[in-house]
């Protein structure tokens, strides 16, 4: 009988059980995965079963890892997103969370652009760590994305986005996320991108500050090419700071809208 052990074909006698196989092949395995799910029982193996044995602290080889990570991907979705390319302009509260969501989805290529460095005040909502303070955000984020999913190709560009570099930076993406902080930068990017890169969808955000009701955060289609997430009015200002939950909700809206666009579906 043929089974797959850590993605390699293996012949085992009929009637072999999962535990028999694991004790023969890797007696110190801490985690046994049978056909994509952790298994703690000892069922007899069937033809073409896929078994992965993992020891704590041991990082699986690249092919094993890909197969294991794909076990939770939805067929038909993963094939499309792995061939996709998404740009993220600004990797603060919104952009860093969008990037992580897309990396976990297995989006093939992410282009992240930001001129800023990680500051202590960012840590209340942005996906960085204390030991990354002072690093360029794009470099810190690239490291975090690679730790999350090494199969994603990350292009990290430490630069300020201007009307002149919008097209060279983002002209080849399938979807762009606007994830800046300042209103004038949002306006510059959206106007600049829509006029220079017609046809490529753009998912922007406006109105994500404070702790107003989560259900007021919406995704709306504004023009043929432009979608905006947020409540449209909650600006970051004294007395109404940016907070992790609401910024995270908006980033989730943006990432989901991007996924829908990559799959050829309307976000709203």
């Amino acid at each position, binding site marked *: 009988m043929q089974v797959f052990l850590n993605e390699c074909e293996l012949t085992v006698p009929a009637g072999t059980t999962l535990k028999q196989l694991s004790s023969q092949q890797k007696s110190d395995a801490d985690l046994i995965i049978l056909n994509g799910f952790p298994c703690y029982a000892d069922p007899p193996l069937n033809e073409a079963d896929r078994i992965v044995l993992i020891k704590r602290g041991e990082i699986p080889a690249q092919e094993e890892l890909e197969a294991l990570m794909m076990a939770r991907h939805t067929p038909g979705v993963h094939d499309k997103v792995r061939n996709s390319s998404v740009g993220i302009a600004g990797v603060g509260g919104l952009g860093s969370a969008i990037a992580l969501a897309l990396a976990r989805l297995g989006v093939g290529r992410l282009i992240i652009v930001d001129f800023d460095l990680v500051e202590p005040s960012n840590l209340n909502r942005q996906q960085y760590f204390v030991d990354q303070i002072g690093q360029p955000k794009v470099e810190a984020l690239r490291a975090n994305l690679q730790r999350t999913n090494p199969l994603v190709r990350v292009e990290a560009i430490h630069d300020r986005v201007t009307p002149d570099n919008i097209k060279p930076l983002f002209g080849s993406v399938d979807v762009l996320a606007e994830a800046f902080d300042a209103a004038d930068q949002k306006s510059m990017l959206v106007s600049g991108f829509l006029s220079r890169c017609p046809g490529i969808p753009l998912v922007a955000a406006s109105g*994500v*500050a404070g702790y107003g009701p989560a259900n007021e955060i919406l995704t709306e289609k504004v023009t043929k090419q432009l979608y905006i997430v947020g409540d449209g009015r909650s600006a970051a200002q004294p007395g109404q700071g940016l907070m992790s939950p609401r910024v995270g909700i908006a980033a989730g809206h943006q990432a989901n809208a991007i996924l829908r666009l990559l799959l050829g579906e309307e976000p709203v």
Partner: protein
Amino acid sequence: MEIQLNGKAFEADPDIRLSRLLESLKLDPQQIVVERNGSILTIDQFSATTLSHGDIVEIVQFVGGG
């Protein structure tokens, strides 16, 4: 003259400049995106753009935070 502003009929002065319309609406040109008849107008075009009767204008205003 009448234009369509964000999906609603809007009475504007004949041949009004876009920059003048934005002023009357108290909109900061730095924080908005304007589409006229399906084309995006960038900030450097606002003062040279004259609106016409029947124009379809969409204005999106951004607020800060992200």
